[in-house]
C-alpha cells in the first residue's frame, strides 16, 4: 500500500453540521447527522447504496434541502436565502458521478463559464486560469474539443478542473470513479490525490478503499441515513467496531 499523505490540519472549521435531518416525502433519509470538518481535512464517506451518503454531501452545497438542524459552510449558514446559497456554491466545488459537463460548450468554455459569469473574471484571465488547471489535470491539449469527444476519465478530470477554476475552498466528490472503466479510475484518483496533497478540504463519497487508506484523515461509514462509525483509516479498516461496518468491509474487501 502506498504511503499515507500527511498534512497539517488547521483548527479552523470548514463545515459544521449539527443534528441535521432530511426527509424525501415521508422517507427519513438522513437522521441526526453531526459532522465537523476542519480546513484541510480529507474525509471519505462510504456505505451501502441507499445509505444517504450522496444525499449528505448534496446537502452541503444545497442541491438538496435539509429540513431540520444546521449546516454551516465557511461560516455561512445554509438557509433558504438564495443569495447565501449562491455564495456557498461558488466556494464549494463539486464533482458528479456522471461528470455533468456541458455538452454544447468546448472544454475550455466549460472551465471559463462560471468564473466569467459568477466571479466577473475577464475572459482572458479566466482562460489562463482554465489552461493552468487543465494542465494540472494533464489534458491541456483537449481544450478546444467538446466533452463528447473525450473518454470518461478525461471528462471527469475536466469536471475537476472546471470546479477548481472557481478556486473553491472545499471540494465535494460524489462517487467520481463509479462510472469509469477500471483503467481510467487511476488517472482520476491520481488527480484527486494530487489535490489532497495540496491541502484541499475534501469530502469524497467513494468505494475506492485504496484511495481512502492513502488519502483520508477520517473514514465515515453510513448506513440507513446515520453515521455508524468514523475513524482514522488504519483503525477503521483493520479493526472496525460496529458489526454493520464489519459486514460491509468484509464484502467489499473480501475478494
Amino acid at each position, binding site marked *: 500500500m502506498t504511503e499515507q499523505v500527511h498534512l497539517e490540519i488547521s483548527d479552523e472549521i470548514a463545515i459544521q453540521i449539527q443534528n441535521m435531518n432530511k426527509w424525501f416525502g415521508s422517507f427519513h433519509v438522513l437522521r441526526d447527522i453531526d459532522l465537523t470538518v476542519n480546513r484541510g481535512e480529507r474525509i471519505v464517506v462510504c456505505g451501502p447504496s441507499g445509505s444517504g451518503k450522496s444525499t449528505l454531501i448534496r446537502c452541503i452545497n444545497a442541491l438538496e434541502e435539509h429540513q431540520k438542524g444546521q449546516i454551516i459552510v465557511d461560516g455561512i449558514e445554509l438557509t433558504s436565502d438564495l443569495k447565501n446559497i449562491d455564495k456557498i*456554491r*461558488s466556494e464549494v466545488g463539486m464533482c*458528479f458521478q456522471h461528470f455533468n459537463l456541458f455538452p454544447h460548450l468546448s472544454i475550455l468554455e466549460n472551465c471559463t463559464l*462560471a468564473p466569467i459569469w*459568477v466571479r466577473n473574471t475577464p475572459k482572458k484571465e479566466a482562460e489562463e486560469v482554465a489552461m493552468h488547471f487543465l494542465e494540472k489535470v494533464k489534458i491541456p491539449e483537449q481544450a478546444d474539443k*467538446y466533452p463528447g469527444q473525450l473518454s470518461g476519465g478525461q471528462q471527469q478530470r475536466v469536471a475537476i478542473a472546471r470546479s477548481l477554476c472557481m478556486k473553491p475552498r472545499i471540494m465535494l466528490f460524489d462517487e467520481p470513479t463509479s462510472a469509469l472503466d477500471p483503467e481510467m479510475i487511476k488517472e482520476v484518483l491520481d488527480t484527486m490525490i494530487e489535490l489532497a496533497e495540496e491541502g484541499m478540504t475534501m469530502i469524497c463519497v467513494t468505494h475506492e478503499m485504496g484511495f481512502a487508506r492513502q488519502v483520508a484523515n477520517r473514514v465515515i461509514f453510513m448506513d440507513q441515513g446515520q453515521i455508524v462509525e468514523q475513524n482514522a483509516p488504519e483503525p477503521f479498516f483493520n479493526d472496525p467496531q460496529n458489526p454493520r461496518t464489519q459486514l460491509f468491509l468484509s464484502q467489499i474487501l473480501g475478494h
Partner: protein
Amino acid sequence: MAHKIASFVRNELIPESPPPVSETGAIKWMRENLFSSPLNIIMTIASLWAVYTLFNSVAPWFLNGVWSGNSVRDCYEILDGATGACFAVLKERWPQLIYGFKYPPSEFWRPNFAAVLLCVAIVPVLFSTVSKKLFLFTVVYPFLAFWLIWGGTILGPIVAFAGCAVAVLASRRLESYGFALAALCGFVCALVCWIFGGYLVDIGKDFLVLPSVPSRDMGGFMLNLILGTVCVSLSIPLGIMLALGRQSDMPIIKWICVCFIEFIRGVPLITLLFVANVVLAYFFPPDTNIDLILRVIIMITLFSAAYIAEVIRGGLAALPSGQFEAANSLGLNYAQAMRLIILPQALKVSIPGIVNVAVGLFKDTTLVSIISMFDLVGMIRGPILSSTAWNGVYWELFAFAALLFFVVCYGISQYSQWLERQLETDHR
C-alpha cells in the same frame, strides 16, 4: 481426450483491395433498390408509368401557358382549344397578389425596400458567425420596417424604440435588486417615455413623413410575410417564457402558464381570429381602436406561443437533471443557468418542433382571409376570382400561391436542418 489446438501466427497483414464490381456503383444500387424481387420490378415499372402520365398531362399545360392577355377569354382565344395554362392572370394581377388591391402603387418601393432590409436584419439571427455589430441593425429593423410599410412620421417609431431602449437600460441597471423590480421599473420608464414621446409626435407631425397607408389597405403575400415574421419572432420568446413558467416552483406563475397553454391549445385558431376581429372590441373602452392587424398578430402569436411552449417543455424534459445540478453547483443563478446551460441545449433539441410550429404558423396566416383581410389567398378568392375578367382561373392562381408558400417553408426547413448540423457537438 485431449483436444488438439491448431496454433497460428500471422506474419504479414492482408493488403486492402477494392470490392467486386457487381457490388458497387449504379448497377448495384439499381439491383438493390429497384429490381430486387419480382414484386419490386412490377412496382418500379408501375411507378415509372405513373410519373410519365403525370408529366405528360402537366407538361403541355405548363409549356403552352399563355403569359399575356387581359382576361381569361384572351387566353382561350390564343390557345384556340389546345390545353394550356392561363398565366396571364399572374402577370396582370401581380401587384394585387403581392401587395393587395389598395396599397398605393407609387409606394411599392417601400415594402420592397423593407423586404430587402429584412434579409439583412435576419442574417445575424440566423448565422452566429456574423459580426455582432450587425445585430444592432436587427434591433432597429422592426421600427424602421414599420415606418417604411405603414408610413407617417418617423418620430413615431423613434419614440417607440426609445421607450423600449430606456426600459431595457433601466431594468439592466436594477437587475441586481431582483428581477420583478427591474421589470416593473423598466415598464414604468418605457410608459413615461411613450407618453412624453406622444406629445413630441403630435408636435412634429410633419417630420420625415412618408404617405401613410392604413392597415386595412395591406394585403397580398406581403400581409402573409408581415404576419409570419412578426408572429414567429414574437412567439418564440413568449413560448420560452411560458415553458419556463410552467416548470416554475412558484405556484401562481405555474398555474397561469398551465391554464393559458391548455386553453389556447384547446381552441381553434379561426375562433381566436374571430375573437380578434369582433369580440375583442367589447373588452376595450369604447373609444379605443386597436388596429386590426395588431389584433390578429396578438392572437396568432398567443396561439403559436402555446404550441412552442409545449415543444420547448419537451426539450427541457430531455435534459438530464445533472445539467441543472452542475450549473447550480458552480454558483450560477437561475437566470444564468437557464440562459447559458439549459436553454441552449433544450432549444437545440426542440429545433425540429419549433420549425414545425413556425412553418405551420406561416401557412396559417392565410386563415385571415376568413375575417375579410385580403392576404394572398384572400385576394385570389375574393377580388381576383370574382372579377369577370378572371373568373374560373383556379389552377394557375392557387398553384402560384402554393409555390410562394412552398419556397418560404422549404427554405425554413432547410435552414433548420443546417442549424441542427451546426450545433451537433455531442458526437453521439
